[in-house]
């Protein structure tokens, strides 16, 4: 009766075998996701962080280096301590900290290490080193933080910090991981790719509790880290330090450039901060304190602040006028103060006299001649055509757009175009009388201090510049810097036109900025005053020296310090002397500058 039933059972058994083997085939052969999950389980990827590249100044002195820091780690399961009071004494922590950290570590894992004390300095570490063997379950890991032997150039050097979510998203090649440190500002940010080096990876096998079980496949896939590339900065550490000292207690900016190369010798933003504040464990608290500081120490004024160029712009006007043939050294205009205010001086003046005396009416009239050239019988159209043609010539001086310095967030400043006035006043509804303020560097025109310093370099070079930059060699090789920094830019004004300008600037020192004169070093300069609607005007001075073979071009801004001939010219003069002579021979002037507080 049951003949069929054994057969049924045999079929069922075979079916079970087939079903099991099919399912096994599906997960073992057809689906490779389990293999990946297995590796995620048992293979731990340990990143070997490379040393970040160092930054040297132009003379080979260290600006930024890596300082080793120690983290005291604890493995709760192995840790035991009999006398907690003594333990806390030795390691200089409170009992609360010990209990808190131990509990947190225990909660995370009893067999994996967690930090007990973070970021112990080398000196602190030396004190506890000998006691470590008395306490099982404690060990030390090393890492490094950025350190600055001289607390200068904070805004130029920038800082590193934990990578943000947005940066992680943008990192399409997936180099970074959560928690990685990246350059966030200044040179650290701009040269992140060079400085960061190459991360190494070690694959370790771990068991389910995370306990190390040796290297994966004998380290076949492991890579060693490659240290970051060292950079040589254009900054002169001594000049930078001296400049920051002079700017103490003031709000302002100094940018000094080597005219022949565009190398930035000093870039000072005052008030500044000690870059050591933004390293290591104190980063968070210090950053928010600096960020809240109403004097804006984190604001990188040399490239981010914009001011009207003021009188200094008259030199640019003179050069454009000369190149256009509208002005000659002999062109004279009366100092007609009904057009625009001026101060007492002989009238009429020729071009030299106009520069020397900074004559406003002269430029009002000269500028009209440059703008209204009868390109159209309609005066509105004529002005529009004239303005745009003139603007092109101004842009060639590196104004109105960022110079491309090797720090992010450089502002472009602005040189207004006809589009701008069309938008404000309506098309065909503005003419020369609307825009004449531009003739003397006022009105809707804004420049950054670095653009001003670059102007000084152009005057020194007689018509060309190299884009200002802060790094002169990557890994010791000057050819590795951005090619733009080694490309000469001509402003479109013939060199011989500059002779008169340079002479006038050299002469002007004795008129408007007598304090700036340096014994034995001939300096050419021009004072300016950036009008400040909120209070005392800003003191501005640009200069280069020595006049015959310029080694340094400089722009100095001191906010709320009034007329440029005082604070700014004095500061510039001291810095020029310091750079060229290597020392300052005028202690009285130094004291005068140091005493000035304009905050």
């Amino acid at each position, binding site marked *: *009766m*049951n003949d069929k*039933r*054994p057969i*049924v*059972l*045999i079929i069922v*058994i*075979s079916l*079970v*075998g087939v*079903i*099991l*083997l099919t*399912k*096994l*085939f599906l*997960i*073992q*052969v057809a*689906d*490779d*996701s*389990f*293999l990946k*999950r*297995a*590796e995620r*389980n*048992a*293979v731990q990827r340990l990143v070997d962080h490379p040393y970040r590249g160092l930054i040297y100044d132009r003379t080979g002195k260290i600006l930024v280096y890596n300082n080793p820091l120690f983290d005291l780690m604890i493995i709760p399961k192995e840790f035991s301590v009999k006398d907690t009071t003594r333990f806390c004494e030795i390691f200089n922590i409170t009992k609360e900290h010990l209990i808190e950290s131990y509990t947190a570590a225990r909660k995370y894992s009893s067999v994996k290490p967690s930090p007990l004390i973070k970021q112990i300095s080398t000196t602190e570490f030396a004190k506890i080193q000998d006691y470590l063997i008395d306490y099982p379950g404690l060990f030390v890991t090393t890492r490094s933080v950025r350190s600055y032997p001289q607390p200068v150039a904070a805004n130029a050097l920038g800082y590193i910090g934990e990578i943000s979510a947005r940066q992680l998203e943008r990192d399409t090649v997936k180099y970074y991981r959560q928690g990685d440190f990246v350059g966030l500002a200044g040179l650290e940010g701009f040269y992140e790719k060079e400085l960061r080096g190459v991360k190494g990876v070690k694959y370790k*096998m*771990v*068991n*389910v*509790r995370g306990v190390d*079980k*040796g290297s994966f496949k004998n380290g076949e896939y492991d890579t060693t880290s490659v240290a970051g590339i060292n950079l040589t900065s254009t900054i002169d550490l001594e000049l930078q330090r001296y400049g920051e000292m002079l700017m103490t207690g003031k709000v302002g900016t100094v940018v000094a450039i080597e005219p022949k190369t565009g190398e930035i010798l000093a870039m000072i933003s005052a008030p500044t901060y000690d870059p050591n504040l933004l390293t290591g464990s104190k980063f968070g608290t210090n950053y928010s304190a600096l960020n809240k500081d109403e004097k804006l120490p984190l604001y990188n004024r040399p490239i981010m602040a914009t001011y009207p160029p003021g009188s200094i712009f008259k030199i640019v006007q003179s050069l454009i006028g000369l190149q256009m043939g509208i002005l000659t050294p002999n062109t004279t205009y009366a100092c007609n103060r009904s057009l625009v205010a001026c101060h007492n001086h002989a009238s009429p003046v020729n071009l030299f006299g106009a520069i020397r005396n900074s004559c406003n009416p002269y430029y009002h009239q000269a500028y009209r001649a440059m703008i209204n050239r009868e390109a159209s019988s309609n005066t509105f159209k004529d002005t529009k055509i004239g303005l745009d043609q003139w603007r092109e010539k101004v842009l060639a001086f590196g104004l109105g757009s960022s110079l491309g310095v090797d720090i992010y967030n450089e502002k472009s400043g602005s040189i207004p175009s006809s589009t701008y006035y069309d938008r404000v006043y309506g098309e065909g509804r503005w003419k020369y009388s609307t825009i004449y303020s531009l003739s003397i560097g006022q009105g809707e025109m804004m420049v950054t201090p670095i653009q001003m310093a670059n102007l000084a370099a152009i005057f020194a070079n007689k018509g060309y510049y190299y884009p200002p930059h802060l790094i002169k060699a990557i890994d010791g090789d000057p050819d590795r810097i951005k090619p733009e920094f080694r490309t000469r830019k001509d402003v479109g004004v013939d060199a011989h036109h500059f002779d008169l300008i340079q002479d006038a600037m050299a002469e002007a020192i004795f008129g408007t900025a007598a304090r700036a004169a340096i014994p034995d070093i001939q300096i050419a300069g021009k004072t300016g005053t950036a009008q400040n609607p909120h209070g005392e005007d800003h003191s501005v001075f640009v200069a280069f020296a020595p006049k015959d073979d310029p080694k340094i071009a400089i722009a100095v801004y001191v906010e709320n310090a009034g007329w440029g001939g005082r604070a700014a010219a004095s500061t510039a003069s001291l810095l020029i002397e310091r750079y060229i002579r290597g020392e300052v021979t005028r202690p009285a002037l130094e004291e005068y500058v140091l005493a000035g507080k304009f905050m």
Partner: protein
Amino acid sequence: MRQDDLYINKIDWLTIFIYGALVCIGWINIYAAVYDEQAAKSIFDFSINSGKQLVWIGTAVLLITLIMVADYRLFENLSLILYGLFLFLILITPYVGKEVNGQILSIGFGNFRIQPAEFAKFATALTLAKYMERPSVDLSQPKYQMQVLLIIMIPVILICLQPDYGSAMIYSAFFIMLYREGMPQKYYALALTMVAVSLLALGIENNLYLVAGIVLVIIIIILLGKKSVGRIISLSLIGLLAIAYSYSLDYVVSKLPQHHQNRIMVLFNPDLDPLGVGWNVTQSKIAIGSGGFLGKGYLEGTQTKFDFVPEQHTDFIFCTLGEEFGWIGSLVVIFLFCALLIRLIMLAERQKNRFSRVYGYCVVSILMFHFTINIAMTIGLFPVIGIPLPFFSYGGSSLWSFTILLFIFIKLDSHRIQLLGRMS
């Protein structure tokens, strides 16, 4: 003396060969499961589980020898005594046994410990065989059905009291034997339907789909057969019962202890709680799945060796095989198990008396149940139930009880000619 008359030639060596192969493969996998590259202990090291398993294997060979030289009538005569003895041991285990992982399942002295529930299986098998040897026993009659059920249920109840539901479940395997011995097919049809409805009820989120499906199936059955009023009414009733059952099942499951509930739900959705209840199945599937076609190579597995899979040398020993020997390794072992089961069916069918045949089918039932459930659970086809893979899993009680179970049958089979006269 003719060659045929040698006792040694009457033993079924094929079965013994498969048994030996499975035990050996199991043993080397136990070594792989506990292998620690840094400690690098030998497979024979008695301080690790592979060394201990070797002792169990050695003693198992001793047991085999004892069984093979014993009188073949002994087991039949001892069946009721053994049944009573192990029931008694199960009963006293909670009071005299040793607690492991919150459960008291084993008794013994010092390191010598056995789990009575493991051994009660073959005692029950012998008792069932003994009972069914009576010519009057006809499983188509409810009276005998009840009596057979009673023999099975007594140990089940006692084991449930321990409580060890996994071991208790194994006794349902005897229904495979009962199927062969003439238990009416309708019970099996009913059981399979209930299993199907259960799986669907638990697996399908919205019970309305299931209701629609049941209604559809019932309508099709009605349309296909003869359309008498009685048949339509009874089929409709069955349909209604199925719907009521599917609804009540959700309710019953919700009343189960949480860890049982979770084990069931994880089957349908392994990602439900991959770090909690789903951990075992998830990790087990990762271990096996990562083996690929040829496996990672012996002792090269990482998942079981580094303890990602819990119970990796006992209930989840198949993971080690799947990880290190891949699909090919799994194929070999599954083939060996299927071959063993089919061979045992063939042996059972050639028995000349009902005692031996029933016992043979009991062996098939228990081995098949363990083999199917254990492997199915490691690959997520069945809820996690803590039962070992026969001959494979680490552990003395398990290896001994399966060895005794199997070799009593090999012994009976070798004497099938002598047992001829008693064929019913």
